[in-house]
């Protein structure tokens, strides 16, 4: 059963059209929602949470209708907004416990779940200090923790890597992968950076200007391209020339050589060439497409 299904979903504001007859389905797992800033991602999440009635169309989340069963949806999902949303004058523990209670968890359970989930996102002793003194990375973790504290079936994460340094970004992406794989909670994560989502998502929905551009499995985007990527330690030009002379379709790409795989013999020709020239072969792998190429097409 799809966890999200939309049909002809539209959202028109007086001056802009945020979404235009958007139809797609999302299966359990980690799904990326990609689009440039202003593509309508946040609007879509608000509609799916039942907070904003769409101008047209229908949508179901976890099999529940957004128009009629918004309250039931909100019992079962978590939401991490993209903007700063935390009061600075309370501790992370106090805040996450409060949010657990707002989802109906009894006092003891709220405290236990808050402690658990703060540990899972990687906040330890600092969780007793007021949030005002936290780094951006720590604040993002608190926002994620409050979205998970009531053990939802699905979480909406809006730009969770925004403002993070490369380390923080890696950590957050790792967490998202764990939420989907280990915690067994489905994730809809938005980003304007395709490369990020390629690393953690099973499926990607791409919207542009409120319209659906593509919705498909990440594997389909990144399937093998029928080319080999070859990297040698030095003198890749010499290897390229040698292979070209022997009728192999080869072109340089930075430090690498991209070689069309004609048949099984291509591998042998590369091996022989490397041996003849006495080069050190670092890698030879199937080249894959990147999601970015969707936009370049």
């Amino acid at each position, binding site marked *: 059963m799809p966890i999200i299904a939309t049909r002809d979903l539209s959202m028109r504001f007086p001056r802009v059209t945020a979404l235009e007859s958007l139809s797609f389905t999302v299966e359990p797992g980690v799904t990326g929602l990609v689009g440039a800033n202003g593509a309508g991602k946040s609007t879509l999440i608000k509609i799916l949470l039942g*907070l904003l009635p769409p101008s047209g169309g229908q949508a179901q989340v976890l099999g529940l209708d957004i128009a009629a069963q918004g309250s039931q949806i909100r019992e079962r999902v978590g939401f991490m907004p993209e903007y700063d*949303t935390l009061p600075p004058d309370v501790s992370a523990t106090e805040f996450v416990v409060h949010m657990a*209670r*707002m989802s*109906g968890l009894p006092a003891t*359970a709220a405290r236990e779940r808050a402690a658990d989930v703060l540990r899972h996102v990687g906040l330890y002793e600092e969780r007793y200090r007021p949030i005002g003194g936290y780094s951006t990375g720590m604040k993002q973790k608190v926002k994620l923790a409050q979205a998970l504290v009531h053990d939802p079936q699905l979480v909406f994460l809006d730009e969770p890597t925004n403002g993070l340094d490369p380390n923080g970004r890696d950590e957050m992406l790792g967490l998202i992968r764990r939420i989907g794989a280990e915690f067994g909670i489905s994730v809809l994560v938005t980003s304007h950076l395709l490369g990020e989502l390629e690393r953690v998502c099973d499926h990607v929905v791409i919207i542009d200007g409120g319209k659906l551009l593509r919705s498909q499995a990440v594997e389909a985007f990144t399937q093998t391209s029928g080319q080999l990527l070859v990297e040698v330690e030095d003198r890749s030009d010499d290897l390229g020339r040698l292979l070209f002379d022997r009728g192999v379709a080869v072109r340089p790409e930075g430090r690498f050589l991209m070689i069309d795989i004609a048949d099984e013999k291509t591998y042998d020709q590369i091996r022989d060439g490397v041996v003849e020239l006495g080069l050190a072969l670092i890698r030879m792998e199937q080249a894959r497409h990147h999601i970015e190429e969707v936009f370049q097409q």
Partner: protein
Amino acid sequence: MTTAIHDIGYRHYDGPRHGRAFIVRSLYLYNLRAVFGLGRGAKAKIIPVFLFVCLLLPAAVDVAILAFIKEPKLLMNYSMYPLWVQPLIAIFLATQAPVIASREIRFKTVPLYFSRPVRTLDFVLAKFLAFVTALFALIAIPLTLLHLGFLLTRSGMVKNVREAGPLAELGKVPSVVHQSGLYLAALAGCLLFALVLASFALVIAAYTPRRGFGVAAVIAVYLISNVVVAIIQGVAISSGNWDLAKWMNLFTPFPLVDGVQTGLLHADVGSRGETVGPRTAGGGLLFLAANVAVVAGSLSVLLARFRKAGQ
């Protein structure tokens, strides 16, 4: 699949999930604690606790004096207690209303509530009732102290009067029943003060998300309305227009509520002076209607404000 998850450490929650009543109660208590700075740093507790002590002080001093001097004329007029301490209450309104009404708007926390099973109406009512409770406690506790003081010192007053003069003077010591009636009427007045003052302060604070501005705005509206009304009343009285002076009380928060005390709750006029509000049930009902309109209007404004902040 579940064993794999347990091995790694994430535990699913399959315990109870409470419904609307639990959430509203939690929200109410959370806000009530927030007004007094509980669960916050020491800084958040200073102002509310200091003001509470300041409000309690006149009542405590009165009871102490009563215990020594035992003169019935030293008994405070219960219904006027909120009027005497109104600057302190106004400061409490100004500093604590933003805690309830603007803090979560300013930090954009409201959407986190509405993405949960929290309804807008419940959210606003819980906040409103928490602030009303805090205000009621703030005014009613000193009043209760006053009344307890009376009950404890009454026998001393009776003895004092009996020793000092003719028995006829005994009539000056109010009976327990009479004074308790005044106390209950004053409590009803307190509740109305709490409802109206909370409405007025929360609406202003909800539209001034920056805390400093919120404090200033509440104080400004309180002071300006008082000054303007006082000026018009002064002019009206000097030109003999007593009716206008009376009706002007509708336009500033404390006299607005006091009009119900003098009109409907049979409050002793005491030292209210010539700008006292209505003295008849009809006038009192009109003032009560104005009070109800203020509360209802404020609630609907707050509802719209938080609904917008939650999207």
